[in-house]
């Protein structure tokens, strides 16, 4: 039933697994660790190709992070994978002291972030991980929007000297970029210029914002769309540019409205170029079981909600 003209949807976790295999050939210093979830995180692909450089640490995430830190201290480039609820969630102190404080090049690539975990419910739906990761000094936080950007982000993470948190999803998402997409840490893509409001998003909400921009254009609200795929460090130049140009900002993320991309953008703009910022995300509550699509609807992570937020931001701007 797939429309042959539409590009195939790919889960960012799948693109991650494939990118590890691709990168692993030329870089014998890459090692991969998992905590009994390699089939789900897709590190299994690397494990099959390079069994000597894959370490399944069992259901022991705290130890996995410490072992990854030791490997990094001895010159390896470790990717440590589990679900986002477990890293950074479960092992916060291990990441803080063993990885972030000594600025060791551990790449924490966690999958199943956000509501779209689906049926497993709140215990497995991490809506707080961006907040946890981005407040750690030395940490870089990346949320790719599609498969091609994930691949590019993996290669960028390998070249990046310090620790990286790479936030990946479970469900297939539409392609936004061509397969040869390049990625620079801390640089955003302006996917669409806009005069009236800037939609600043990460992860699967980038595609949702592109849809919202179409709706808004029909009302003569010209919305710009920015893929803010590095949540830390922010691309301050691009944020300042879009805030000054449009004078109103909407942030959108599959994460709590507290402390994630919306929090980071608001913190930054309030001190340098204060404009109305309306945040779209999960309100201060836990998720629940359901199909991924149903959950996005139920928690307001939709194009119509983003369009509402954009109208509100524009009204706030005019009301000043």
């Amino acid at each position, binding site marked *: 039933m797939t429309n042959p003209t539409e590009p195939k949807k790919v889960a960012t976790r799948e693109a991650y697994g494939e990118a590890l295999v691709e990168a692993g050939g030329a870089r014998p210093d890459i090692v991969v660790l998992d905590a009994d979830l390699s089939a789900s995180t897709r590190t299994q692909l690397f494990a099959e190709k390079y069994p000597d*450089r894959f370490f399944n*640490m069992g259901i*022991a995430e705290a130890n996995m992070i410490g*072992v990854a830190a*030791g490997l990094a201290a*001895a010159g390896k480039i470790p990717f440590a994978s589990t679900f986002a609820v477990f890293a950074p969630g479960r092992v916060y102190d291990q990441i803080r*002291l063993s990885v972030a*404080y*000594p600025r060791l090049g551990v790449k924490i690539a966690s999958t199943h972030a956000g509501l779209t975990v689906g049926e497993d419910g709140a215990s497995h739906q991490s809506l707080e991980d961006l907040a946890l990761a981005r407040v750690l000094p030395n940490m870089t936080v990346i949320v790719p929007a599609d498969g091609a950007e994930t691949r590019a982000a993996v290669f960028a993470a390998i070249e990046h000297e310090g620790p990286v948190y790479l936030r990946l999803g479970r469900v297939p998402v539409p392609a936004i970029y061509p397969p040869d997409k390049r990625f620079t840490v801390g640089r955003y893509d302006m996917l669409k210029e806009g005069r009236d409001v800037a939609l600043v998003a990460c992860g699967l909400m980038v595609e949702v914002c592109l849809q919202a921009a179409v709706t808004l254009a029909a009302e003569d609200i010209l919305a710009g769309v920015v893929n803010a795929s590095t949540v830390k460090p922010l691309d301050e130049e691009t944020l300042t540019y879009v805030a000054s140009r449009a004078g109103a900002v909407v942030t959108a993320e599959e994460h709590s409205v507290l402390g994630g991309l919306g929090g980071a953008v608001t913190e930054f703009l309030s001190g340098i170029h204060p404009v109305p910022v309306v945040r779209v995300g999960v309100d201060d509550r836990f998720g629940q079981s359901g199909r991924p699509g149903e959950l996005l609807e139920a928690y307001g992570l939709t194009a119509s909600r983003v369009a509402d937020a954009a109208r509100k931001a524009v009204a706030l701007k005019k009301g000043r």
Partner: protein
Amino acid sequence: MSTASVDALQRTAAIVRRRIVEMIGRAGSGHPGGSLSAADILTALYFHVLRLDPENPGWPERDRFVLSKGHAAPALYAALAERGFFPVSELDRLRRLGSPLQGHPDMKSLPGVEASTGSLGQGLSFAVGLALAARLDKASWRVYVMLGDGEIQEGQVWEAAMAASHHGLDNLTAYLDYNGLQIDGPVEEVMSISPVADKWRAFGWNVIEVDGHDISAILRATRDARETKGRPTIIVARTVKGRGVSFMEGKHGWHGKAPNEEQLKQALEELDGLASALAAEDGRPGAAGEDGEGTSG
């Protein structure tokens, strides 16, 4: 190991103890009890066991030592300074603003420190990562790690213990500074860790029990550990918290408290007395400030 060299190591340990007490007294805070209990093991490691080059602290082939019980930082700093990694005068800057001698070890600020520790339970995992890296590189360097006895109440230690034996890491040797006391009191009262040796054996480790103040015994056990193939070794070292300072010995109150001026004076007198006695036994004058015998790579 000749008797003469063991004597030299004992004299060095006395100097290390003096430095520990002196720097904590000067800083006005720190952890003397668990630093003094670890002093003989650290001296044995830094002055006989570890392949190191103080002139080149990043030498890739060096052995690695991870102080998982990071609050014993003064013992590590004293050993590193005596071994020549940085001037002994730097010890005066312990815990001062801007000092590389942080309250707990910071691998990025001080040469010779291999891991940033201080939140207990993390160092063994780090050491497992180092040991796996050495194996991947088919390198001959070894990994040594020291754990506190209270520290092994942390669950992560047992995750790491499982991983080390699962991977058969015979290039990894752990020391348990078994001084029997933690902040709130005797380990056996706060949360029993008995039977310690059986627990590690059940996790697949080779276990050697020694008197942690008997340097010959520490060195013998370390050699046996090195010769043990296919599994990691833990040397369960019975120690006395505050060892070497009469009023600190066996008192959990001295876990994280600095001596006042008067106490410092008495402690230093006792430690100087010990150093002179050791020097006299060996027929050599003036132990304080004298270099211990070391092996470098």
